[in-house]
């Protein structure tokens, strides 16, 4: 047995990778989950930075009434593209495709995902979709101007390049389905010996729940977008009121996907946070099962609440009531998670490192975003704030304050493992200060604007909103400064910083038990798992 070279012969795969391709192709054709994860990360960052820049331009336009830097048509295209890039190219694939791909096999003690080639295929789909989305900018009659929601019948009438943007979203949907399917199968089949479902790190649990949403919800988006294309090209009439179609049905189908999609965005972030907190509190998580099951609860109840985006669209009073009721139910699992995280800090031994700081900001920002979600979920108040900046503030708080901040936390937390080098912590704290202040200045203002009645997707505004728009825009500048400092620091760190050790943070999950950066095939020998994921041996010894 000692002669055995098990692990070295995952036959075709190595063969395929090591012999055939060099240079950039060694990346583009690699089926190694780590390489795919890193490719996703960098592609995403690119599109993300473009979208951030668009957001910045929008704020510039809103600084003063009337035309400042762009006309109404450009503004409309820009918020559409900003939304499409952020949602479909960044925040939905975001954590699962980048960090999930890299970390999931490591965390469950596998050499790769269940279908490595499918994984690569899903990256290609992603890239194709992304390129199409960008092409829609420069070709044909100009970028789409419908908002990321593509509401019919406007999306059927406008002369802009909606078809390409819709096609992009359609292909990205495929990419998302394949990732979800792959992860679910991986978790069912490839857990290391001894790793029962309840010994998986909570990040894996969140990916599991996310995978199910991707599978359950994305096909509906696929068919809806396909129908929009058919409407535009052929005029089949199913959403066009002139031809007897019902535009409200479009909204139903769109949100059947897009509400669950918001949980695709948030669940993996919650999972990462559930890994980060025990690491830096030096103790096990409080209420492991409660957190794991609440992920599943969110995934399944989240499937039933789409109607809350349509409270003013003319659906029946009964369905408004039912959707409102279910919306409130879906808030409870999130509350459970928040309380469990807090309890995990209790009697820990807390080390406030950059990943912890960015991660813990999630709790406050997400709570603000989530609690304002309750205002949106209540029928009476949503009637007033629907389609105003209140909603814009809500979703930036949950998406950017929630997922975005945890994304940053993850970059700090796992970055050293992925790139093998350390960043400068001091600079990270400074960047955090700018981010936190700028963020709240930018988006909290929007809550006030929204309640005052400032509608969203407005190129211009009434004079009474001016001063608050100025505050928000200045906030966006502070935020951007923070972003720049943070990225420059990370870039320099991962490029030139001191070498990172195998386990710089004292993490307890399996990804910290392989060398930094992890080798091809991850493990020399598949480990046998004996403990729960957040087992800090030190605590046990000292207590005896």
């Amino acid at each position, binding site marked *: 047995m000692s*002669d055995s*070279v098990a692990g070295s*012969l995952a036959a075709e795969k190595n063969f395929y990778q090591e012999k055939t391709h060099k240079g950039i192709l060694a990346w583009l054709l690699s089926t190694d989950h780590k390489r795919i994860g890193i490719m996703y990360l960098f592609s995403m960052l690119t599109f993300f930075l473009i979208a951030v820049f668009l957001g910045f331009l929008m704020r510039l336009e809103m600084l003063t009434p009337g035309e400042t830097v762009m006309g109404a048509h450009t503004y409309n295209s820009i918020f559409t593209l900003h939304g499409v890039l952020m949602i479909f190219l960044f925040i939905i694939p975001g954590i699962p495709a980048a960090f999930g791909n890299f970390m999931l096999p490591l965390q469950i003690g596998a050499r790769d995902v*269940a*279908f490595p080639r499918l994984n690569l295929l899903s990256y290609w789909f992603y890239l194709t979709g992304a390129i199409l989305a960008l092409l829609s900018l420069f070709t044909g009659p100009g970028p789409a101007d419908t908002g990321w929601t593509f509401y019919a019948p406007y999306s059927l009438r406008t002369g802009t390049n909606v078809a390409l943007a819709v096609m992009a979203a359609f292909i990205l949907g495929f990419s998302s389905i394949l990732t979800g399917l792959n992860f679910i199968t991986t978790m069912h*089949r490839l857990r290391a010996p001894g790793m029962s479902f309840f010994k998986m790190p909570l990040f894996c649990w969140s990916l599991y729940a996310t995978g199910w949403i991707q599978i359950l919800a994305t096909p509906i988006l696929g068919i809806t977008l396909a129908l929009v294309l*058919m409407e535009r090209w052929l005029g089949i*009439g199913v959403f066009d009121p002139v031809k*007897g*179609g019902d535009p409200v049905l479009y909204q139903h189908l769109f949100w059947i996907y897009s509400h669950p999609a918001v949980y695709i965005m948030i669940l993996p972030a919650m999972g990462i946070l559930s890994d980060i907190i025990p690491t830096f509190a030096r103790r096990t998580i409080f209420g492991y099962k409660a957190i794991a099951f609440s992920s599943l609860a969110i995934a399944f109840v989240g499937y039933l609440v789409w109607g809350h985006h349509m409270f003013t669209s003319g659906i029946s009073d009964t369905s408004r009531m039912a959707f409102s009721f279910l919306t409130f139910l879906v808030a409870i699992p999130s509350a459970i998670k928040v309380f469990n995280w807090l309890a995990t800090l209790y009697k820990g031994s807390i080390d406030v490192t950059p990943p912890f700081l960015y991660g813990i900001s999630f709790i406050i920002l997400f709570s603000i975003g989530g609690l304002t979600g309750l205002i949106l979920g209540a029928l009476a108040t949503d009637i007033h704030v629907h389609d105003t900046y209140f909603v814009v503030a809500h979703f930036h708080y949950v998406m950017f304050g929630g997922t975005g901040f945890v994304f940053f936390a993850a970059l700090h937390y796992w970055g050293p493992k992925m790139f093998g080098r350390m960043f400068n912590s001091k600079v990270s704290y400074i960047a955090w200060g700018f981010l936190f202040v700028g963020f709240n200045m930018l988006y909290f203002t929007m809550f006030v604007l929204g309640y005052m009645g400032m509608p969203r997707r407005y190129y211009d505004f009434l004079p009474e909103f001016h001063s608050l728009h100025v505050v928000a825009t200045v906030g966006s500048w502070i935020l951007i400064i923070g972003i720049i400092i943070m990225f420059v620091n990370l870039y320099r760190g991962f490029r030139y910083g001191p070498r990172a050790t195998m386990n710089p943070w004292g993490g307890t999950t399996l990804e910290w038990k392989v060398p930094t950066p992890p080798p091809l095939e991850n493990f020399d020998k598949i480990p046998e798992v004996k403990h729960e994921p957040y087992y800090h041996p030190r605590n046990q010894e000292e207590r005896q």
Partner: protein
Amino acid sequence: MSQAAELTMEKHYDPIGSRIGMWLFLFTEFLLFGGLFLLYAIYLNKYPEEFHYGSSQLDQFVGAMNTIILLTSSLTMVLAVGALQRDRRKLSIFFLVTTFTFGAAFLINKYFEWGHKIELGIYPGSQELTQHPQGEIVFYGLYYAMTGLHGLHVIIGMVIMLFLLYFLLKKSHRALSIKSNQIQNLNGKRLLLSDETGKKLWKSQEITSEVTGMDVVVKGVFTEEQLKSSEVKLENSGLYWHLVDIIWIFLFPLFYLVSM
């Protein structure tokens, strides 16, 4: 004295995993059509008369023929899978080709059916159709969208069958490669190939420190796993084909029989 090194093949092919993956995928396909069925149900409710009238304009006979064709093709697909499981490769190929032919027949039928309607000027966006009541526009919109999408699935299913034929006709081979850092472990040893009973089939030269990497390619159909792999591939394609069939079983009554 050199010692033979044992090459344990990493178990990287997981038939159960493949099946799970396939079922999940089929599930997404159901949901895809599910969205369309939902639309159909809602519009049927909104425009009952127009839908009944529209349906009565479709050719029930052609529809029924196509139903029979697809059902039969599902049967031949099952037979193809069964044949491979019993190791009857040739028979399996025969049934696969039969299934493929049925698929083609279905498409040809569909082509004439659509062609006829288009000749009458009844297609989305046509001058003729815009004169019809709204419910009928929607009916035909859905008719073309749903049967079209289904047709696309038939085509995809057939393409998959072509791939499978290729796999079944091809001689399998297996390549192992040993990387340089692992070669060190094998220094002074030999590679040994043996069958299940332990009979030695082949032995390599002694591996010296000059050897920096190795590829071993073995041709022919030999491992259990290899067989399993094409079997599961065929089985999964079979599942896909049944999906195509089942969806048609829903489409047929919805479009051709509601008028009755």
